[in-house]
């Protein structure tokens, strides 16, 4: 496999690439458990977060990951920027790149924007979410969470997942469904037609249904998507109450889950809508683990792209070397 410079979509990694990142994330999780969770692996590298759309959670996760690898971090927040003064996206990127940036972490409201940026810079570009299109590090942290929570270091092959809610407008759904299927997970999409992409079919998911109750007793992972209030204005569902009745995790549905079923959510949650029970009372809920794992997985992605050994060539021993406390200092 050729060394990738950027991570724009999880599909670009392939199953082997995903496994490589998840293996690396195990090392990173070990680093994160140390009293001083910091290694010099990316010392001298500069990572710039460029968020054209607000997402404090994702930005903090990436910046924490970069700092734990000793990279320098910069933040470009659009509200304070020249973009509001009419500077083009390209000029903005080229200007920041000229300051010496090794990686851009990009969030943009438009599908495809990270791909355009990738064409304009020699730096690595990590897609931190673009439009409805992709959110590859979310998909990786989801896969990592399933793997660690179910003790499936050997692989996810044969697991069954249902992903419920607004798939149409969800970059998380597109990336997570793709990653899970590449890893051999059987994915059922659960949503009314109004919240499905047009022409949704075998290329998108293994099964599609609008009846959550038909699948809820027979899954290893229940993945709930955020139901956004603004979708009400677009006549996509009649009311949030009806949405909860048909697609929400109610206490009745929680009781129907198999005991080991994981409950996941990309956050932020709409309590009372897609989750109508307190997740703290659900033994299978791994929603906070997803957040914790996000740091390790993003460290793995940054290291995979920027580590001196280069992508795909991070052998176990080389990795071990740079991740040793004080190593190569």
């Amino acid at each position, binding site marked *: 496999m050729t060394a990738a410079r950027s991570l724009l979509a999880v599909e670009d990694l392939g199953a082997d690439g995903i496994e490589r990142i998840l293996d690396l994330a195990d090392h990173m999780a070990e680093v994160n458990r140390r009293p001083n969770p910091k290694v010099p692996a990316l010392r001298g590298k500069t990572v710039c977060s460029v968020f054209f759309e607000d997402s404090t959670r994702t930005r903090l996760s990436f910046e924490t990951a970069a700092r734990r690898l000793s990279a320098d971090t910069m933040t470009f927040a659009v509200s304070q920027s020249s973009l509001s003064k009419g500077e*083009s*996206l*390209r000029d903005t990127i080229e200007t920041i790149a000229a300051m010496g940036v090794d990686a851009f972490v990009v969030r*943009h*409201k*438009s*599908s*495809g*924007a990270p*791909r*355009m940026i990738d064409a304009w810079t020699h730096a690595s570009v990590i897609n931190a979410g*673009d*439009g*409805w*299109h*992709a959110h590859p590090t979310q998909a990786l942290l989801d896969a990592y969470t399933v793997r660690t929570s179910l003790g499936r270091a050997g692989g996810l092959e044969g697991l069954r997942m249902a992903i419920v809610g607004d798939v149409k407008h969800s*970059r998380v759904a*597109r990336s997570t469904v793709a990653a899970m299927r590449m890893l051999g997970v059987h994915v059922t999409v659960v949503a009314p037609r109004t919240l499905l*992409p*047009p*022409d*949704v*079919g075998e*290329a*998108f998911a293994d099964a599609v249904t609008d009846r959550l109750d038909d699948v809820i007793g027979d899954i290893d992972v229940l993945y709930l998507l955020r139901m956004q209030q603004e979708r009400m204005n677009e006549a996509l569902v009649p009311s949030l109450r009806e949405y909860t009745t048909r697609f929400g995790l109610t206490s009745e549905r929680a009781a129907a889950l198999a005991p080991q079923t994981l409950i996941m959510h990309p956050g932020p949650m709409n309590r009372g809508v897609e989750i109508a029970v307190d997740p703290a009372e659900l033994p299978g809920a791994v929603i906070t683990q997803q957040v914790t794992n996000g740091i390790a997985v993003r460290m793995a992605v940054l290291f995979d792209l920027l580590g001196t050994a280069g992508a795909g060539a991070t052998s176990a021993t080389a990795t071990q070397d740079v991740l040793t406390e004080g190593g190569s200092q």
Partner: protein
Amino acid sequence: MSLLITGARVIDPNGERRVDVRVADGIVGQVAKQLEPVDGDEIIDAAGQVLTPGFVDLHVHLREPGREEAETIETGSRAAVLGGFTAVVAMPNTDPTQDSVEVVDFVRRQGERAGSCEVLPAGSITVGRAGERLAPFAELAGAGVKIFTDDGNGVQDPLLMRRALEYADGLGITLAQHCEVERLTEGAVMHEGSCCSRLGLPGWPSIAEELMLHRDIELVRLTGVGMHFLHLSTATSVELVRAAKADGLPITAEATPHHFSLTDERLETYDALYKVNPPLRTPDDLAAIRAGLADGTIDAIATDHAPHVAESKEQPLDAAPPGMLGLETALGVSLASLDMTLADVIGALSWKPAAIAGIGDRHGRPIEPGEPANLTVIDPDEVWEVVPARLASKSRNTPYVGMPLRGRVLHTIFRGTAVVRDATALR
């Protein structure tokens, strides 16, 4: 001074023949098997080439007034004649809108000043293209406007559209619709289908075009007033027009070269170069457009030439404006893509759109003595590739780089004078 065109195969509404043609004083003078040069003749040796009436483009955006950084009437009409067009219909989405005599007079004058081809300003159907009240059809018709459209927007209000048709009756004008039900295309950047599912891009469903087309066909049936339909893009649209014509309704339709040569897969690169309205569609739609042109359901090839500066296309798809260049590549794309006789392609580029534009008295004419000399000489077999930097248009947003085009415009004669010689603009 006169112009002698020798050796050409002539294709015009009267058919095909091998003749020499002398042009003088803006009109076709002599036509004969063989004409001898006389003193002062400028000679065009067109042996092996094809002489046709000049092409007529029903649909161009020349951007002047208002967006002169993207195109001017001078650069756009130069691009037109390089594409073999001797008349173009300039869409009214200018700033200010072409909804007053002052603005349409300005556009026409700028066309005359540039002197390359005839620039026919279209009027808008509604004031400011806002879809609220009718533009002054009769005043504009008095200023020579023949085609009225809100192109870029469809007229959403069915009551207003009905009134527009009824009021237009008898004024000698044609209303042209951009078919798009806007409630179905909010935020859309590409064809709604499997591509947009995968790419996470908001889709522009075919039904948004077909619903308005169907509505307007029924309004034509109700009012008896004819209409022209702009840039058809879907298989069902072709079917609707075919059925309406079979019913004898007075309608005409056009299709663009990009809708019969490119499909929605182009958007996989997220390159806004391929964003256009209506969007590039599926291979089935493309095949239906080709078949519609071949059987005459679609009357004319029109480019929807839409220049945009590079910066505006270097944006994410939702922010970038729709549209692509077309004037200089229309013939080459048409002959490379369409399974039609050369005469049928020329007809769809020349005399059929000339009739729709209401200029059949001076464009798309038979090449006979006494006729206005708006002519084009093409090499129908030359294979070539477009080089953006060499385009006469002020903008570079052509989607055809790297695609072999067939058929090259060599010479264009406007009102008896060569304005393009050897594929080079002279004005």
